[in-house]
């Protein structure tokens, strides 16, 4: 990632970045696989793209024909982000999986679970320092709730592990489904918030299946918010927040979608509350208690509309600034610090206070 020439960012405000993607290569992940699996992985995959192995390459050009550039592997360990972090004025980072967030798309189940464990060992070893600067989310697989629960028990208490990351495009059932209860139970016991994050890979599940996008513009516009709405609706309607004391974070879909869901769901619920008997408040009130990653910060024609959306949906204490570095739609801190439409208090909460509460920093 090329570095900024911009002036020094805001000083005096603690900036916590809720997401920098780790830059693990295929070779890095192989190191953490058990011997029997590693042997098959090293010798297998004739003709597969070298850096992918079992993770499907989806064929999308995310660079707009080379007009946007970045390096997916630019942060192979926490300290590799030091220079960029200091340049951006970021104080603390909560890492998310990088290339490994697509392990949920690995078709072989045994391999998929093995890579989940390998990534978690890697992130504990190389990223989750717990030193005031570098923290990380472990990864879970909603399609394997029992194995994920075991993983949470295994690594959830490690220094620096402050959240559970799940890839939300790929699950065959929305997260409110009871099959995911072991995952919620384990996250609650470990005190880990659950962060949902989409992928623009093409798994045979909602919302990818059947969408038939013409191009990446169509797909990327819809994939993240549709997945979030699908999961958020089921989490609320099926009473997950009432049954489990777990915080949810919805990353990388911005926050304009919340208003649609809040407004529509409240009316729907009032017309048939018998279908969501566990709720003790309106759906919109649950939405106002979830957390949301800000990136990619929406860019309405009037920047002040963003302030209005935040206020209307009572999100001032719920938004977490994320860079999403090094991805192609990342947000440098000046996207928030220099924003013409946000109040200073909104910026301050977004830049650090809310993340500190969510992740217990």
């Amino acid at each position, binding site marked *: 990632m*090329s*570095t*900024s*020439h*911009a002036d020094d960012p805001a000083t005096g405000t603690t900036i916590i970045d809720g997401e920098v993607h780790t830059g693990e290569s295929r070779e890095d992940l192989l190191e953490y696989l058990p011997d029997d699996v590693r042997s098959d992985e090293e010798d297998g995959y004739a003709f597969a793209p070298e850096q992918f192995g079992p993770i499907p390459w989806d064929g999308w050009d995310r660079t*707009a024909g*080379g*007009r*946007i*550039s970045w390096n997916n592997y630019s942060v192979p360990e926490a300290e590799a982000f030091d220079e960029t972090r200091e340049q951006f004025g970021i104080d603390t980072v909560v890492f998310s999986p990088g290339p490994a967030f697509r392990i949920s798309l690995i078709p072989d189940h045994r391999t998929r679970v093995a890579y989940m464990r390998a990534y978690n060992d890697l992130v504990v070893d190389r990223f989750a320092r717990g030193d005031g600067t570098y923290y990380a989310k472990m990864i879970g697989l909603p399609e394997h709730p029992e194995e994920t629960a075991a993983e949470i028990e295994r690594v959830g208490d490690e220094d620096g592990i402050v959240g559970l990351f799940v890839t939300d495009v790929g699950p065959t059932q929305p997260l409110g489904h009871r099959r995911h209860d072991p995952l919620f139970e384990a996250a609650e016991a470990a005190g880990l918030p659950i962060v949902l994050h989409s992928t623009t890979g093409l798994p045979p599940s909602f919302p990818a299946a059947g969408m038939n996008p013409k191009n990446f513009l169509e797909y990327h516009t819809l994939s993240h918010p549709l997945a979030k709405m699908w999961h958020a609706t089921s989490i609320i309607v099926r009473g997950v927040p009432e049954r489990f004391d777990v915080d949810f974070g919805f990353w990388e879909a911005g926050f304009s979608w919340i208003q649609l869901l809040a407004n529509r769901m409240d009316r729907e619920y009032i017309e048939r509350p018998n279908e969501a008997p566990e709720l003790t408040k309106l759906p919109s009130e649950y939405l106002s208690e979830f957390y949301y990653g800000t990136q990619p910060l929406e*860019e309405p024609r009037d920047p002040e509309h963003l302030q209005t959306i935040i206020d209307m949906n009572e999100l001032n204490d719920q938004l977490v600034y994320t860079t999403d570095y090094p991805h*192609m*739609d*990342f*947000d*440098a801190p*000046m*996207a928030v610090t220099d924003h013409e439409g946000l109040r200073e208090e909104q910026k301050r909460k977004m830049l650090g206070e809310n993340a500190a509460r969510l992740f217990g920093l």
Partner: protein
Amino acid sequence: MSDTDAESLERVCDAADVTEESPAVVEFDGTKLAVFAVDGEYYALDAVCPHQGGPLEEGKVEDGCVYCPWHGWQFDLESGDHVHGKASATTYEVVVEGDDVLVRAST
């Protein structure tokens, strides 16, 4: 050229430092500029993308425009205008005299 015109021009680099493949980055009046050469014409813009601060000198140049490598924002090299009207990159007049690239200070 009048004396006043000459005084407001400042040499920023050698013409050889600016190629189509590799724009130059220069300091000018406290600002980093990106100097581009396209089909024998020279352009100078504030190197800091007005969107989020990306390095315009590293952007793809095509059809008289530069694309910021961070988010692909497209700026006309001559006017500095963003093609979708969201912002403008500040432009500076460039004069090439022999081997010297000069930029005129804005008034």
